[in-house]
Structure formats: C-alpha cells, structure tokens
C-alpha cells in the first residue's frame, strides 16, 4: 500500500508539471496586448512607458526564459504578481480566495453525495411504486437541467419572490464593517470544521458497517452525527481572541445556502440515479439471495449487503464529480458573485491577468489531482478485489 501511494504521488507530480506547462503556454499564446490592456486600458500609452512596464514585468525576455523563470519561481512559492492589482502577489490573491471556494465545494460535495446515495438506495429498494417513479423522473429532470438557468430560478424564487435568502455575494458588508476578524479567518475555521465533520461522519458510518450488532451500528451512526453537531457547536460558540465568531459565521452560512443548494440539487440527481441503477444491479446478485436465506433483517440486507456493494461504482464517479463540482462551481460562483477561485479564474482570463490565471489553474489542477488520489486510495479501501498487495 505504501509503495502504491508513493508511486501515485510521484505520478501526480509529473502530471502536475505537464498540466502546468500546457496551461502556461496556452495562456501565453492568448492574443492581445495584456500590458496595454492593463495600463489604464489604453492602447495609446507612450512606447517608452510601455517598454519600461514590459521590462519590469519581465515580458521582454524570450518565451523559454520567461517559462524557465516562472517554473523556477513557482516551486519556490512565488507565483508572480497580478497585472490587474499590481503589485499584489498572486499567492496572496489565491490565499484569500481558496478557502471560500473550498468551503463551498466541500459542503456541496458532502451534501449531495450523501443525499444522492441515500435517495438512490431507497429508490432502488422501493422500486416500482408511484413515489419511486416520480422521484426518478424528477431526478432525470434535475440531472438534465442547465445550471445557470436553474440558479437564476432559485434566486428568483427564494430571494426575489420570497425574500428569504440573499441574492448574491458571500457576506453582508454592513454587518462586517466593525468586524474584529477578516472574513478569511472565519472561512478557514469553517473549512476545518466541515472537513473534520465530513471525515467523522464517514468514519462513524464505516465503523458502524463493520460492527455486527445493529444496535452498535446505530450508536456509531448517531454518535457520528452527534460529533458533527458538537463540532458545529464548538465552532458556533467558539471565540477568537475573546470575540465570538458566531454572527459572522452565521452570515457566511446564510449566504452559502443558495449556492450550495444549487450545486447540490443539480449534482445530487446524478449520484442518485447512478446509485439507483447500481443498487438495482446489486439486488439481482446471488449474494443478496444468500443474505435473505440467512434470515437477515431487511435493513441489514439493504444497507450492509446491497448498498455497501453498490457504493463502489458510485465512488468511482466521485472522481468525475470532482471535475463537475469544479466547473459547476465556476459557473455557480459567477452567478452568485461568490468571490472564490472560479470567479477569479473567469475574470483573470477575460482581463488577461496571466499570472493570476496560471496560478488559479494550477490550484484547481492540484484540487482535481488530490480528488483523484483520495478516490483511488478510498476505492482500494472499499473494494478488497482491487486492493493492492505489497508484492503486486
């Protein structure tokens, strides 16, 4: 296993280098004079001033030298400075945006994966009744929905018509005027709570699966849930240098509802339909008949035998879902003016803020690679048939 993980990590580094190189050159050949665009958007700036600027940004050097310098700096943690917000370092911009995106993605991913899996499980189990038909058809509808349209419909309904939720942005500036924290402090805290909660729930569920007693399984599941709630409470009442973060976190959570709902509803349907068909297939397997013949209760057959085995292809799809959530996230962030990585990706490419664009791509690439890696390891963990042996 250790060897496998090491090999995968080395592969990832190579893959990342290729990815970064391709991205860099693709953005380099973008047509247009970025420097001219940057400086007051004026193509008529004096040639001298332009040359000075070019020289200062290193744009006068040959391509390969520029590339060499970029890579050299990249692995020292220097991603250059933004053209647009000169002289702000790219690392700084990404450092500000990344937590916001991670919190949004992670929350959406956990919510829709869990909801989709549970819904798909019950759909397959109760196959054939009217409710199942309705939900399946609704799921197909959601699955084929155009995301921006759907997001606008939700905004229209919940924010404009009902006025329950904010229309856009990630916080209410009024409320934060005298805030003792930077928004990102709150975001980082949210991120860790969400990550730990997701992991705790997974671990509790998995441990429950391993136990033979139904009661113990229930205790572990409920315990996992309780742990998550405890985490949130800790967060909720938590203080940072004597000040409560509660109202600020609440504000961010409030603004997160709509974007998470949008991402969840759209992506949830895909997971649900996949789980349903995978589960239907599993239910036809002989080992389900064996489980019935053994006199196991229906709930055990459903959860421990059918759903556990049907989970495997669903986990595979998680790899693809990582990509979906990233590009879906870009659109969602744009629609909701959520100042995260997706939003900065679009604006930097449109404004030819090349260093920021490359940096943003690089981080999204890293996220996707980490996603793949986690799923690979997870899959080996879940399916003994493909578990890698030391000598394999």
């Amino acid at each position, binding site marked *: 296993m250790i060897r496998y993980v090491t090999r995968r990590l080395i592969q990832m580094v190579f893959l990342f280098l290729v990815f970064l190189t391709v991205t860099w050159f693709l953005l380099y050949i973008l047509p247009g004079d970025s420097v001219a665009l940057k400086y007051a958007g004026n193509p008529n700036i004096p040639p001298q001033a332009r040359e000075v600027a070019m020289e200062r940004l290193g744009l006068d050097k040959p391509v390969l030298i520029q590339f060499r310098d970029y890579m050299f700096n990249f692995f020292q943690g220097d991603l250059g400075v933004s053209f647009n917000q000169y002289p702000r370092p790219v690392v700084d911009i990404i450092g500000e945006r990344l937590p916001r995106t991670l919190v949004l993605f992670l929350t959406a991913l956990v919510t829709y994966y869990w909801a989709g899996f549970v819904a798909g499980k019950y759909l397959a189990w109760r196959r054939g009744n009217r409710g199942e038909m309705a939900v399946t058809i609704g799921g197909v509808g959601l699955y084929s929905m155009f995301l921006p349209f759907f997001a606008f419909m939700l905004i229209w309904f919940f924010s404009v018509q009902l006025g329950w939720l904010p229309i856009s942005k990630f916080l209410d500036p009024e409320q934060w005027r005298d805030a003792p924290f930077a928004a990102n402090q709150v975001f980082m805290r949210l991120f860790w709570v969400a990550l730990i909660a997701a992991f705790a729930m997974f671990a509790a569920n998995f441990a429950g699966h391993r136990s*033979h*007693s139904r009661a113990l399984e229930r205790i572990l599941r409920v315990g996992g849930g309780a742990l998550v709630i405890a985490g949130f409470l800790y967060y909720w009442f938590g203080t940072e240098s004597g000040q409560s973060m509660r109202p600020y976190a609440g504000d961010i959570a409030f603004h997160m509802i709509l974007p998470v709902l949008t991402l969840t509803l759209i992506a949830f349907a895909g997971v649900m339909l996949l789980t349903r068909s995978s589960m239907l297939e599993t239910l036809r*397997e*002989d*080992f389900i*008949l*064996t*489980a*019935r*013949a*053994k*006199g*196991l*209760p229906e709930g055990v057959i459903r959860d421990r*035998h059918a759903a*556990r*085995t049907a989970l*495997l292809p669903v986990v595979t799809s998680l790899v693809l879902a990582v990509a979906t959530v990233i590009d879906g996230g870009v659109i969602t962030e744009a629609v909701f003016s959520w100042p995260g990585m997706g939003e900065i990706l679009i604006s930097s490419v449109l404004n030819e803020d090349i260093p920021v664009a490359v940096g943003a791509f690089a981080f999204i690439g890293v996220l996707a690679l980490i996603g793949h890696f986690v799923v690979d390891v997870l899959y080996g963990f*879940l*399916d*003994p*048939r493909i578990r890698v042996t030391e000598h394999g």
Partner: protein
Amino acid sequence: MTARRLPLETSAGRAPLLEVSGLVMRYETDAGEVSAVENVSFSLGRGEAMGLVGESGCGKTSVALSLLRLAPDNARYQSGSVLWEGVDLLGLSHQQMRQHRWAEISMVFQGAMNAWNPVYRVGDQIREAMYQHFDPPLKPREMDQRVERLFELVGLDPTLQTRYPHELSGGMRQRAVIAMALSCEPKLIIADEPTTALDVIVQAQILEELKEIQEDLGLSVLYISHDMAVIAQVTDTIGVMYAGKLVEFGSTRDVFHRPRHPYSYLLLSSIPSVTGPRRRPVSLEGTPPNLLAPPSGCRFHPRCPWATEQCRKDEPPMMEIGPSQWAACWNSDQVPEMGEQLP
C-alpha cells in the same frame, strides 16, 4: 382412478420433517401467469437425502425457494401447504419466517462464486448468520472456535476464514458455502446444483463429503440438479419434475434403474453410460412447453412417444407403481426397461 397422496411415512420409515402437499405456485408476469409449480407433493424424513431433478425451468428451484419463502415478489401461492414439523411455512409472518431461515433450513446455492458478497471476509459472512440466529448470542471466542470447526469439517484450512471470496478457488468457495450452511445447525440443507460450476474431480469430492457430513450429523438434504447421475449416488429418494409438475417419485434405486415415467426414462437414456452396459443414447425430442400456456392433459404428451388420446385430455395423477415408486403416467407399463431399444 383417484390420485393417491404420498404416504406420510417415507421409505426410511421415519416421521417426515418436511411435507409439501399440493403446492401450486405461479409467477405473475406482464405476459400472464406462469405455472411454475403445479400440484407438487412430496415428503422428506429426518436424516434423509432427496433429489429433485429436471431440465432447467422445470420448477425445481421454485420448489426449493418455496421452502424458504424466497421466491421472487411476483410469485403467488395458489394452494397447497409446506409443512415443516407440522407448521405451515406459507402461513408464517415475515418475522417468524426470518427466524426459521438458516436456523432450520439452510441452502447451498448454485454457483458458489456469486453466493458470497465480494466485499466481506468469508469468515465474517458466516459469523453474520450466527449473530442472527443464536440466542443467547455466542461470545466472540465461541464464534471463532465454531467457524474453525466448521472449516475443518468441510476440509478447509481454518486460516482461510480471513480471506475474501475472490482469494479462494471455486472448490474452496463451495466448501466454505457448505460450512456457512452448517453454521446454525439446520435440520435440512437445500443443495441447489451444489457442484455445477466445479470440475469433475472436485465435484465428486464435495458430494462425498456432503454425504459424510449428512450422515454424521443426521441432517436431511434436498439436492437439486439437472443431472440425475450426479445425485443418484448421494440420495435415498428422487423426484423427477417436468414443466412444474412432479412426474415421478420413488427410491433412488427404483427411479434410477427402472424409471416408470417416460420423461424420466428418456432423461436417463439420453445420457450415454460410461460404466454401465453399452447402449445407444436416445434423444429427447422437442422443447419444454411454454408455461404461460401449458399443454392440456399430461404436460409431457407433446414430446412423449407413448402418448395416447387419453394423455392429451386427462391429467394423470400420481399412481403407485411399486412399493416405493410413484409415477404420473397413464401408460407407465409401456415404458421399457433401461437399455432396451425404443419401439
């Protein structure tokens, strides 16, 4: 002549453990009702081994699944009863039925490959059944010892219990399935094509071991197979099924050496004997009938060389042929001796 019910006292002279009488089961499908089990009656005594043979689709697995009430959801029991120690299983609640499964009747499934859930260790899947059925529950240590004993009983290395199903060979898996079937000390084991997926040598070994275990533990076993020759060595009685009906029933000796129903005769004669006298294999013409619309009269008449007008009109009841043999045929005296040429 009226149909005679099979006697309660079986050939071995013991009180029956299981008595199936007049069982009628149909599958509801979009195309109509499929008559899968039609008026099947037999009984099985304690410590007895019985075989149920027939072509695929003849209803033998449907009968077996009925004993555990595991038939698919679209199965409908029209009439008849399945008496287990005097209690009708068809009338039990789901809860009662669940407690009855595996603890009283367990099953060795065909194709042991798929009988195991691929994501759990073999030993854990056996323990799972024991967790369910032992009251008070066994302690973990007792359970470990039990699994070890079971593995030794079926000729497996006890350390194999920590393996996953895919890490075992076909024969090992089948042995482990038998160990699992024995885990809750059932009185009856249903062995549905227990050796079909295995090579001939392993097949013989496993059947032999199963027979030994059956005799040592005083179990009853119901073997289900399409191959009469395979189960003839290990059973006391044999029932032959055709198109949902039991057409012949009797001691293995009688049915195997002197079948009295044309179908049993043709089924046996269609297989060339390797060890017995040389004879020309006889072919069984035609295909099994469509059970959505079974033939009138005797269901075998379209394929039967001895069919008469009576066979087309009237359904033959089970008739006593000898001291321990019954056949549902109007012309059972016309069926030739094994090895004779067809007229």
